């Protein structure tokens, strides 16, 4: 009876339960820190990111260096990198069969 009680929940189960106050604190903090960091995002960082991402894409695609947009956007509690890049000419490998 006692041993059954002792085996019922291991310390790790208790510590990692999704409904305990530690898990709640962690989830709340994760969201709050993301929001804070998003609010403090500097335009310079986004510009740097845009330049690097565009350079990476250019290794695979012939892109229009004039027509592109990039931003980090928040939707509810998620964050998205939204990019729009015009392809100058579609490469042959992209054609289906």
């Amino acid at each position, binding site marked *: 009876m*006692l041993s059954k*009680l*002792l085996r019922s929940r291991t*310390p790790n189960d*208790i*510590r*990692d*339960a999704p409904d*305990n*106050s*530690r*898990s709640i*604190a*962690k989830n*709340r*903090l*994760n969201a*709050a*820190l993301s929001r*804070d*960091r998003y609010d*403090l995002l500097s335009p310079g960082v986004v510009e740097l990111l845009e330049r690097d991402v565009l350079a990476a894409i250019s290794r695979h695609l012939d892109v229009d260096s004039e027509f592109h947009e990039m931003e980090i956007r928040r939707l509810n509690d998620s964050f998205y990198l939204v990019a729009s890049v015009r392809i100058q000419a579609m490469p042959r490998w992209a054609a289906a069969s």
Partner: protein
Amino acid sequence: MKGKTIVVTSGKGGVGKTTTTANIGAGLALRGHRVVVIDTDIGLRNLDVVMGLENRIVYDLVDAIEGRCKLSQAMIRDRQLQELYLIPAAQTRDKNCISAEQLTDLCHNLEQEFDYLIIDCPAGIEQGFRNAIGPAQEAIVVTTPEVSAIRDADRVIGLLEAAELHHPRLIINRIRPGMVKRGDMLDKDDIVELLAVDILGLVPADDRLITATNQGVPVIHDKKALSGMAFARIAARIDGDDVPLMDLEPKSGLMDRVRYLMGINRSEYTHA
């Protein structure tokens, strides 16, 4: 000789910056280094009372900066440690009466004679914070396992990085191992994951720290205090020693589990 200047900061007040500064200073002095601790919390000085030196103040940091005394006259020797000095903050002025450049110049002079300068930073992210981080080559961020302290730590880490104080190291203060085990307190891995920084040390919540501070003695001098042992390890790591983190897991023998299930919270620790 060229000493190293380290700022102890946190963003949030009341997480243990001043206690940490006093104990790191004492810890490095116990290891044979020449150390100065500097209170930059102008208007709200406290490092002097924490170290038990409040009755010895004649001149302060602002007096030294404004030339009313020699730098050496603003330095108070510790009661126990011959090679540990305090430069107290001014109590009747405010944070805007000195600049980061002035404090940096003062620290450059001290770095010629001392191995370590430890700067106790005021709470907040305004002028006092800017002054305190100005002279530093390294930064230590103190937090507790609470949502408010961790959030402020994240903000401060961002500001330190922006000021090119890269790779600040984190001290998590007032950990309660029993609560961590019960799933009622964030543990060190949670905090490291959230803040993405390196850990410098873990300090357990400890009644002995309160009684030591009541007497104006840094708890590192109390050989029985777990928090004192934790600070000794932190000082060793700052000094370049590779010491493992303190194991703050509560003992988990059969009787402890029975006690736990019965709801009796015993804060016993094991440590290497």
